[in-house]
């Protein structure tokens, strides 16, 4: 496998926060993964597991404490030169969770979507700018008349489409979608997910899909990483994770997914998982390979027990 098959290679990423002198919050504590070009990597885990922090570190909204992030073969975890920053902010884009909070209510849609173009001077005339934005709106399934409206005039699903248009207009290679469908209704979620899939096929995009809704993650992702308390406890293809979960945390997550089947659902008991009483220590574990695509964080003894 050629090295440049992987657009992103994250190695031993650590992100610590220091709320005051005495405390340290290890939000991400040594996470490694690789993302293949044109694929979708799903990051799942409960709140506080560090999934959003990883997303923010990748796009350098946070400065990682240590570790390496190779983006297209270039190291972007350390100090950024001006050119490199411009490169990654153009080639990596983010879609946020709450489309109401992430769109400026005082700006028109056209100005919101064109913000990246403005910052990078990517057009020669006003007309070209308008044209670029309008064609982008059509591309995400909005009509071009919407360009002169304000965010409050749209429904949640439409706003999220604006958020997607804003991300795509820079012709990025990687899109980090941070819980981008969690705030939407089920039927709207399906529309947005279909749109994301279409855009991926059209533009060969790579997605980092951060979510806690596992059924959607399974649907959209090729690879899934399960995070808990800042550690990547299990990682594999979606079939590895869903058909052969090994780590007890993954199992408990899977058992908690509500299924639209009233007969099984009523009698189902969710498998509990409590890190502090389970006797598992993430910092002692190492990555064990279960199959070429499937790795688990555990000690030798735990691996023998679970696998």
């Amino acid at each position, binding site marked *: 496998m050629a090295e440049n098959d992987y657009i992103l290679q994250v190695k031993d990423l650590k992100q610590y926060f220091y709320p005051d002198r005495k405390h340290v919050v290890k939000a991400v504590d040594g996470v490694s993964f690789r993302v293949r070009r044109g694929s979708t990597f799903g990051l799942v885990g409960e709140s506080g597991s560090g999934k959003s922090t990883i997303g923010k570190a990748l796009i350098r909204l946070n400065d990682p404490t240590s570790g390496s992030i190779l983006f297209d073969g270039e190291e972007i975890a350390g100090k950024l030169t001006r050119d490199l920053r411009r490169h990654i902010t153009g080639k990596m884009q983010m879609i946020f969770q709450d489309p109401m909070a992430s769109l400026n209510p005082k700006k028109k849609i056209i100005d919101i979507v064109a913000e990246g173009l403005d910052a990078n001077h990517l057009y020669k005339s006003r007309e070209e700018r308008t044209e670029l934005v309008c064609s982008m709106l059509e591309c995400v399934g909005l009509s071009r008349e919407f360009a002169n409206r304000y965010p409050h005039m749209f429904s949640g699903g439409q706003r999220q489409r604006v958020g997607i248009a804003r991300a795509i207009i820079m012709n990025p290679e990687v899109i980090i979608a941070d819980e981008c469908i969690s705030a939407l209704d089920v039927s709207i979620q*399906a529309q947005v997910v279909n749109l994301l899939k279409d855009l991926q096929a059209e533009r060969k995009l790579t997605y980092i899909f951060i979510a806690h809704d596992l059924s959607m993650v399974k649907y959209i992702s090729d690879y899934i990483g399960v995070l808990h308390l800042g550690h990547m406890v299990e990682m594999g293809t979606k079939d590895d994770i869903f058909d052969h979960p090994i780590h007890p945390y993954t199992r408990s997550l899977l058992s*908690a997914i*509500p299924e639209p089947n009233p*007969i099984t659902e009523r009698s189902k008991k*969710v498998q509990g998982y409590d890190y502090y009483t389970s006797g598992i220590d993430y910092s002692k574990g190492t990555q064990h390979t279960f199959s070429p695509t499937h790795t688990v964080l555990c000690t030798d003894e735990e691996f023998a027990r679970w696998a």
Partner: protein
Amino acid sequence: MENNNAIQNGEPILQIQDLSVSFDTTRGQLHAIRGVNLTLHKGETVAIVGESGSGKSVTVKNVMGIGSSNQVINSGRILYTYMDGAQRKTVDLLKFSKKKMIQEINGKHIAMVFQDPMTALNPLFSIGYQLTEGMMLHKHMSKKEAWKRGTELLAEVGITDPELCMKRYPHQLSGGMRQRVVIAIAVSCDPDILICDEPTTALDVTIQAKILELIQYMQKQRNLSVIYITHDLGVVAKVADYVCVMYAGKIVERGTAYEIYFEARHPYTWGLLLSMPDLSTRDDRLYTIPGSPPNLLHQVRGDAFAVRNAYALEIDFEQEPPMFRISDTHEAASWLEHPDAPKVEMPEVLQRRIRLMKEKVQAGGEGRG
């Protein structure tokens, strides 16, 4: 009067009859609810499912008497039956003033759990204060008694170290903990009806499952009648006895959970079921319902769903379908149920999915390990 006058399980406790509500907006009248009928029986769970804007929250807000100030109630009654000492009383909640609702009904008889536990709790007061407030007012407990009872309640909802938690403030608790506190507050005055408005939408899957189990446990312990509002059909499958599917201010289909999931008749229900990816989905695209819900500022002609409905008949654009009875518990408002209508089967994909689900049940339930 004897005490066997008490409301038995299965008797209607709350009946919403032909409720119609509109809002005065700057752009005219918005008909948010257009004739909703719903009956809640003692000890049962009813779930109302629908997209945002379908009117599910407006319906239950009127049960609580906390409707917005620009709303106009065009018609309808909300009959609530309760025991006042040994006497059975039936009242129309819509006739009560806001003040009377707060004094006599809210919290004491009908309690509500809201979506976002951070906004439902007041950040300026301790958990203990907010938990004891209702008990002191409604049950005339002394502060000491209420505090003791509150500590017991926190232990019951699964909070470790309840004494410490009583002294804490909302921001010191996690989302799941906060929702547990809200549930403890809701059941603190022993209500008959618990209304849960999207109780788990703001929470993760693992916490969601625990909160749902907690509500179920509370329901069993106290013989509560519960109304759930949600757009998540997975949640509904777990908790509901009866399901009402709401669309554009009307209930379009109602039935037992089994009937809605396995024998749905309304095309909108099919659409909702299909747009949810189940874990065995291998298809390339998810099904989506085309179009968007109608603008309720305009008068709806015919069936509100007709324009988005692939199975719409001509009459759907002309005349509103009545509720057609399918079984004792199952009704659907779709002209397809009319004896003269052409026979339409539910979509192939959905049939296959249901068949798989049923097979899985026969194979012994839990397929995944």
